[in-house]
């Protein structure tokens, strides 16, 4: 049997012998790779130079994270609880950053790539360090004044790191029995808990919403009832879909739902200029917090104003 010299294998030349002929792709430049290579590993590989304390991260957290995750990481509505938790071996385990996540790098990586939810990859490096530090602080894992940076990163100790082990399945062994395989006298038969299946799809009076937007008619069906929109409002519709709907579609964190006349009446009476000001600069209301531009600082003031017009005119 033909054998390759081990030196060739080590040099990676073995792979070339099976590679297809032809000219596919082009070299990726260092700058192109740097623009996309955002991943962070537990050993800190990939972390950019920067840093911030939990104290410095508190402001960005309150402005950009707390509306969903809560000021103490307790979670609003069904948004993830990220602090506290535990009882992993109990009947009602609570998996949070502090109680469950094995590596702090995961938190940095995830905040950087996917948060804030409506505006991913919009945070500065120092904001990511600060918010990461603050979430660790909310979990009593670092001090308020301690600075998280590319060098101190590996000092963070996560309590649950050693609790993970590689899959051991198949872990159960059933047999292909055909007769007397179970004792019917010992059967305990339990049916479904009432009211949890979303039968709203079939029955309107089930009390169960058929979509995340509640029982409002789907967009296409509502078309006939749409009011005539101003030019500003029409211009704002696409911004609304991309930037506002995440919260204002389902009424998250106290946000008035787009199209909900009663929720908007009191607000509209304050005048469009006030609403636009709140949307651009942020606003703390009784029921929730509107972050400046909903966290989408990439949007122009004009685009935000147009989106507000769309929401107001669609909610009359």
């Amino acid at each position, binding site marked *: 049997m033909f054998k390759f010299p081990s030196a060739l294998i080590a040099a*990676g030349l073995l*792979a070339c012998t099976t*590679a*297809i002929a032809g000219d*596919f*792709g*082009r070299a*990726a430049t260092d700058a192109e*790779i740097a623009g996309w*290579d955002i*991943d962070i*590993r537990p050993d800190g590989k990939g972390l950019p130079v920067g840093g911030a304390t939990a104290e410095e991260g508190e402001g960005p957290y309150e402005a950009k994270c707390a509306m*969903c995750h809560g000021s103490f990481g307790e979670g609003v509505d069904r948004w*993830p609880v990220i602090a506290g938790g535990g009882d*992993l*071996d109990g009947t009602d385990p609570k*998996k949070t950053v502090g109680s*469950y*996540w*094995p*590596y702090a790098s*995961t938190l940095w*990586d995830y905040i950087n*790539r*996917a948060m804030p*939810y409506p505006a*991913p990859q919009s945070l500065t490096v120092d904001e990511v360090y600060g918010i990461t530090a603050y979430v660790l602080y909310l979990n009593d894992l670092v001090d308020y004044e301690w600075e998280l940076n590319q060098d101190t990163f590996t000092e963070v100790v996560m309590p649950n790191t050693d609790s*993970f082990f*590689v*899959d*051991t*399945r198949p*872990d*159960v*062994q*059933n047999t*292909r029995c*055909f007769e*007397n*395989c*179970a004792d*019917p006298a010992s059967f*305990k*038969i*339990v*049916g*479904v808990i009432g009211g*949890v*299946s*979303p*039968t709203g*799809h*079939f*029955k*309107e009076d089930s009390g169960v919403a*058929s*979509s*995340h937007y509640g029982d409002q008619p789907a967009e296409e069906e509502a078309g006939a009832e749409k009011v005539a929109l101003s030019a500003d409002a029409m211009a704002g519709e696409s911004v609304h879909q991309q930037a506002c709907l995440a919260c204002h579609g*389902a009424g*998250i964190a106290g946000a008035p739902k787009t199209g909900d006349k009663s929720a908007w009446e009191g607000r509209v009476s304050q005048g469009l200029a006030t609403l636009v000001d709140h949307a651009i600069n942020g606003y703390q209301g009784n029921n929730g917090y509107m972050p400046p531009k909903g966290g989408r600082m990439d949007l122009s003031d004009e685009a935000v104003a147009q989106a507000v017009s769309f929401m107001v005119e669609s909610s009359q």
Partner: protein
Amino acid sequence: MKAVAEEASALKGQDRREFLRKGLAVAAGVTAGAAAPALAKGNPADMAPNVPSWTKSLGRGVVARPYGRPSDFTDLQRRTVPWLTASPESSISFSPLQDLKGIITPSGLHFERYHGGIPEVNPDSYQLMIHGLVDRPLIFTMEDLLRMPSVSEIRFIECPANGGMEWKGAQMEALQFTHGMISCSEWTGVRLSTLLDYVGVKPEGKWILAEGSDASGMSRSIPMEKALDDAMVCYAQNGEPLRPEQGYPVRLMVPGWEGNVSIKWLRRIEVGDQPWYHREETSKYTDLMPDGRSRKFTFVQEANSVVTNPCPENPIRHKGFIEIEGLAWSGRGTIKAVDLSFDGGVTWKQAEIKGVALPKALTRFSFKTEWNGEEWMLQSRAVDDTGYVQPTLAQLREARGVNSIYHKNSIHTWNVHANGEVHNVQIS
């Protein structure tokens, strides 16, 4: 019958038609049984001896619908369970298994799972970057991928949380919600091994990171052995470009493994010497055990099966002959046999495999019998070509407790009542 009519009057449009179709059928089964003639559900003016209206006028011509869509009389749709998730952009919908009669899931009915909504990727701007521990870091365009040697394979994709709502007890009174996080398509694209060979993986390259370009930047670590085995970089589903919901223009397809690793809207593959431990392989998609420890890298979807007829959405409407039908699948290989029990697992009979049985693909089974109003505890049990036998719920709970969320592949029970209705129950 009166109750059905009253309920139907509260509905409208498509919902009403659907409810009437199903509700009347149930009512007919309940009150009339097998002896009654088929009830006239349609418009008598269109039924014999009258000549139907569609016969006496011309229909639509060619290309009236350039793409085409199902008949307006059908009601095939993905559905979601809103209370499962906080918002629709990071959520899941379910395939209507109760309405499907093949191993291929129509592309528009493939279950959905997004963590940051569906990105609208322009294929002209599409790039796949492969870098890290490779000899030649390269960027491929759509044109590059389409020129490379391709393969086509029929494979299922299943979310590992399929059935996960039912670890602690039966919750969902519908097949669509108990098992609908699985779909099966013909996938076409380039073997990942072809691409990795082409860029040249360095000997220390043991893992890849696959990353999407969606708003969640979905990322998963995959061992090199699997990457070089049967993973595919796909651009087509059921013969046409991928649907946006399925990763248009390019997704990863990792056969037999939990759906989350088949990264959609694939933008980047990095080769490394160790896993990255990102959110979706630590915080999520790890399986919590009763002792408080957790399994990680629980990739494979073990053998599973479910009866699709009858089921809660498809009650038995007539006494006499019935073809019990269902689906079986295994992420480890090919379904070799499926057994059925009518008494909650005391006795079992072997069903037939229907049509083709392909590895890591949905496989249909069938059992022809009679039903005469007796109560059934109907179960199916899949066996794959590794010899693995689908376990009971009691076995899984004993090994894993009830808090592991993922990979619940236990034998499922439908309770068929004397009136033909079917309910989801658990036997312990």
